[in-house]
């Protein structure tokens, strides 16, 4: 197989599919085949009833052998449907799988234009011409294989991270469990009971924590921060800084004699600052690893602990932060959530009135091992409250704070009400102010019933404000009972706020280190909300638990186990294969050798490009996802995206605009959203005018401004760029980079005299077939309105400018 086939050597076979009557019912297939046969380099063309069927594929293989074909074009359905099938087919016939191209004459043609069979046939011909034009320039590509380090890093030692680590370790992989705090356990270790069964939280989590510590395949790295992450799927290089505890991990026995003699106390953050801990201490008795820590912010260095530790010599005041480097094949992010504290603005009096607390603080109060020994008492006078009001959705479901639902607040409030009733019976009045009681999942609704039966008062309505009685320190709650439809006023001795769960502190920093996107809510974004809920945009990095959005314990556990399974799909193989449609830099052309450029490195959404001063930029193949944003951004045109080269795309544009360009709309659509939206328009049989010609790219970020300029130079009537919605880009933000580029271009073109409507950038999701059809209808109508004559005139006027702008290229 020749690597660089010259055009005269290219022997293309075109296979036009009837798809039963799906295509043949509208398009005159015989006519199309005859047309295809006359295209340059096409040496064979034939029609099949079903090209994707076994006999259809056999026919392709036979033709490759018989006619010595070295390129194959199939005109049938969407490449999103069968490109993979036919690539495999040509590979089986001995061709490079990338010597294959598809013309979408079903979704984009016969299904979209059933009432215009004549025009549809013409469009089908042109679509094949476009495909053939690209096929002529196809180059063979080899899949890229990279080795895999069979170890994993789990970031965050909460219940999700614990389960992920345990499962991976059980499968036989070495796991590093990184925890920022002193102990693993996460929020679950802070809780008293768990809903809906009311089992003691630490009693069920504690043994799991110990399992983690004991497992020979797990290494806990606690009280440590992630400093740097480099590399790619199967080959991450991670730098971790272990913060000094001033107590040696291998020597500390966890006896606690040091804490007994320490004179200094400081607020225990783990106790929500309700209680205190010593300057040398563990945050809670069940901590894992059970290693004491000296907080030098508070320590007065009396060295009483050193004496108490005695011959064990576990205390070392000279300990320094230590950086360690790990090599891992996969990373699981399980960094959980934080609880929103409404101090700012003293929402509902929190921070101002001493008897207003959050639910997590209430949790520490009612916990037998907590700072009050399990007695629910008021901060103002230490007395047990006779009436407690719970306010739901504080900061969640609130457009001014966090619009999302925090998922587990309804359930833990129910738990707290039941616990109060169990502890104090009729001696305490319990009120819950709620918006909606969300008790889905197994056993939850029954739990809600139980609370009702125990005499908890549920009041549906949002609380407007809480005011303290300065004498009694009781709280007066003003709310509207939406079921009664009247305002109410209620006095309670304690108010508990169910505050929102927010992304854990440092999520932004972690997102930057790992290069994984976050949603508008600040939680990490999964690769696909339904089908890839555990994957991130970066291959080899997975999500588990509440770092992706608030989750309760069973859900987090399930995700931890799921993420472990996802990571194992990589770790269990000696190598991973990466699609070779990546960016390649031509070191000769790269101007980074002469001037400080590095634009590609800056624009790459994945940090896959390195541009060191004085050296040509370099793409790490395994990190490149093949969006092509760098290719479009490169000012020196030094980068090429394999399988979507400039030459190939320009050839497609040329082919599309060869005849009557003024009547046509040239579309450049991203594979994942706009192209799929056009597919859906066809599948849904939304008709639209047949004068659109779509060129497919993987990401709209690939769209070079030269493509647009070239299209207008060729005389295009209109140009449409179709992209994913702003935060839906499959390549993080390639679409936004395209937008910036195109907004600037649109202004420039308008200045040069282009009617603004002739160039459009649209966001079309894969679900917006209607929108796609509507856009094309609008554009076609506008095209008619502007009129051929004016377009030709405008194009004539534009041409010298375009030539000048494009002169750099050719």
């Amino acid at each position, binding site marked *: 197989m020749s690597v660089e086939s010259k055009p005269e050597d290219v022997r293309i076979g075109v296979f036009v599919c009837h798809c039963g009557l799906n295509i043949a019912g509208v398009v005159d297939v015989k006519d199309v085949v005859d047309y295809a046969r006359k295209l340059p380099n096409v040496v064979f063309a034939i029609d099949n009833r079903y090209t994707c069927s076994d006999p259809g594929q056999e026919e392709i293989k036979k033709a490759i052998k018989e006619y010595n074909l070295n390129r194959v074009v199939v005109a049938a359905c969407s490449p999103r449907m069968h490109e993979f099938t036919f690539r495999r087919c040509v590979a089986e016939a001995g061709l490079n799988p990338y010597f294959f191209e598809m013309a979408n004459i079903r979704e984009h043609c016969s299904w979209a234009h059933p009432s215009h069979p004549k025009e549809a046939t013409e469009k089908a011909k042109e679509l094949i011409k476009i495909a053939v034009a690209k096929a002529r320039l196809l180059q063979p590509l080899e899949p890229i294989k990279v080795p895999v380090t069979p170890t994993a890093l789990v970031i965050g030692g909460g219940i999700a991270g614990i389960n992920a680590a345990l499962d991976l370790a059980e499968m036989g992989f070495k796991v590093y469990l990184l925890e920022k705090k002193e102990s693993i356990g996460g929020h679950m270790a802070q809780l008293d009971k768990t809903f809906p069964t009311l089992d003691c939280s630490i009693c069920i989590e504690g043994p799991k924590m110990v399992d983690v510590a004991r497992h020979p395949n797990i290494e806990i790295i606690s009280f440590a921060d992630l400093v740097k992450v480099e590399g790619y799927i199967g080959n991450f290089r991670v730098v971790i800084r272990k913060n000094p505890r001033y107590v040696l991990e291998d020597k500390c026995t966890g006896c606690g004699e040091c804490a007994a003699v320490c004179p200094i*106390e400081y607020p225990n953050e783990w106790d929500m*600052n309700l209680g205190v801990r010593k300057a040398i201490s563990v945050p809670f008795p069940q901590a894992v690893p059970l290693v004491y820590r000296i907080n030098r912010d508070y320590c007065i260095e009396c*060295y009483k602990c050193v004496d108490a530790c005695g011959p064990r010599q576990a205390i070392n005041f000279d300990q320094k932060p230590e950086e360690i480097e790990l090599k891992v094949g996969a990373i699981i992010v399980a960094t959980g959530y934080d609880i929103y504290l409404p101090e700012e603005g003293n929402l509902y009096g929190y921070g101002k009135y001493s008897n207003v607390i959050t639910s997590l603080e209430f949790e520490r109060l009612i916990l037998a091992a907590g700072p009050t020994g399990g007695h629910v008492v008021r901060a103002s006078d230490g007395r047990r409250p006779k009436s407690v009001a719970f306010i739901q959705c504080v900061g969640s479901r609130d457009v001014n704070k966090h619009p999302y639902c925090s998922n587990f607040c309804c359930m833990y409030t129910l738990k707290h009400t039941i616990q109060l009733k169990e502890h104090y019976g009729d001696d305490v009045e319990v009120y819950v102010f709620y918006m909606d009681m969300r008790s889905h999942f197994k056993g939850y609704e029954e739990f809600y019933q139980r609370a009702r039966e125990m005499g908890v008062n549920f009041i549906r309505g949002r609380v407007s404000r809480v005011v303290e009685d300065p004498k009694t320190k009781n709280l007066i709650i003003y709310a509207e009972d939406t079921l009664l439809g009247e305002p109410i006023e209620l006095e309670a001795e304690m108010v508990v706020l169910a505050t929102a769960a927010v992304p854990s502190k440092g999520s932004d920093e972690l997102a930057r280190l790992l290069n994984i996107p976050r949603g508008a809510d600040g939680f990490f974004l999964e690769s696909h909300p339904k089908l890839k809920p555990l994957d991130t945009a970066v291959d080899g990095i997975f999500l588990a638990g509440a770092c992706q959005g608030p989750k309760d314990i069973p859900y987090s556990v399930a995700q931890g186990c799921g993420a472990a399974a996802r990571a194992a799909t990589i770790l269990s193989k000696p190598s991973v294969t990466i699609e070779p449609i990546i960016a390649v830099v031509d070191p000769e052309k790269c101007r980074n050798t002469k001037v400080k450029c590095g634009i590609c490195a800056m624009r790459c959404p994945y940090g896959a490009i390195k541009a060191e001063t004085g050296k040509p930029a370099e793409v790490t193949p395994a990190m490149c996802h093949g969006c092509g944003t760098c290719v479009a951004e490169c000012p020196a045109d030094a980068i090429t995206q394999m399988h979507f080269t400039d030459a190939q795309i320009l050839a497609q544009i040329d082919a599309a605009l060869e005849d009557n360009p003024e009547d046509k709309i040239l579309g450049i659509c991203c594979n994942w959203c706009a192209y799929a939206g056009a597919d859906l328009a066809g599948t849904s049989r939304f008709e639209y005018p047949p004068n659109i010609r779509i060129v497919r790219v993987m990401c709209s970020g690939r769209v070079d401004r030269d493509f647009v300029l070239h299209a207008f130079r060729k005389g295009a009537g209109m140009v449409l760029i179709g992209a994913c919605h702003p935060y839906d880009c499959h390549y993080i933000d390639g679409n936004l980079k395209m937008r910036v580029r195109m907004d600037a271009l649109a202004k420039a073109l308008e200045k040069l005299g282009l009617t603004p409507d002739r160039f459009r950038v649209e966001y079309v999701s894969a679900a917006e077939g209607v929108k796609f059809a509507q856009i094309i209808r609008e554009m076609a109508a506008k095209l008619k309105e502007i009129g051929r004559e004016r377009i030709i005139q405008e194009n004539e006027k534009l041409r010298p400018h375009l030539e000048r702008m494009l002169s750099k290229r050719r």
Partner: protein
Amino acid sequence: MPVKIVKKEDENSLTLERILYTKHYTLSLDRSRCIGCELCKDACPKEAIKIVKPENLEAVSESMPKKITVTVLEDKCNFCGICSEICIFGAFGQSVNGEVWVPVLKSESFPQIVHEVKVDVAKCPPGCRICEEECPLHLINVRFNGSGRVSEVNVDVDRCPGCRVCEVKCPYDAIHARKILTGSIKINSDICPEGCRRCVDACPIPSVLSISEGGKVVVNDLFCVYCGACRNACPVEGAIEIKRMSIRHAPVKSGAWNKALERLTSTEGMVKELRSKSTSRVCDSVRRLRVGGRVRR
């Protein structure tokens, strides 16, 4: 829950509170007792105490005192209680949940400073009030019984800095006080500005400092308690030199005390004390550090 730290400060007092759900820490300073020395500042292990002088004070608050005093930085204080023990004038007090509580004393992380005044009432002549009248800080209260004989001499020992004025003035050898701090004080007359009497005004013990005929300050070492208030008040650096040698205290073994001692006296002072404790190993290591030109704080 955010940690509630409340600082209230005015001319007469300062209170710093750390209010947790279960514990309430209070550190209070009685500014009428504070004479603006620097013992607490030097002893504080967290550098949480700052000297405030009237000239840069007015900017802070008008209600602040018109003399040199100290303030506590709320973001640095960890309520260890060292200041309340080291203050020989008894200006600081610390409590937890309303009860006096100095954690460093309980754990012996800091020694009890020994204030000692002994009175032999048997030697007191009837009707004598000399000590009561002479005490510059008014800490002595003499009581008589029905027949006019001295029945009791009450001394507020915790606030007594040990100037020994009472002992020296007592003609009957009935009262004995021990100095808490020992050391030396020297006035560099060359640079002592003429006509200035700030140090004289700052000194809590009259008759320690006085203005000579030449307009310069002279010192009477006998009653000096080496607190350093004069040095703080002096506008010229180096005009007053104070060297503290030792501090009378109950025996403890504590790093925090050693460091405080080093800051309050000198490295030699600390070494001397350590040597007297026969912990030669520590002394050697300290000496090595000094030879190496570095003194670790």
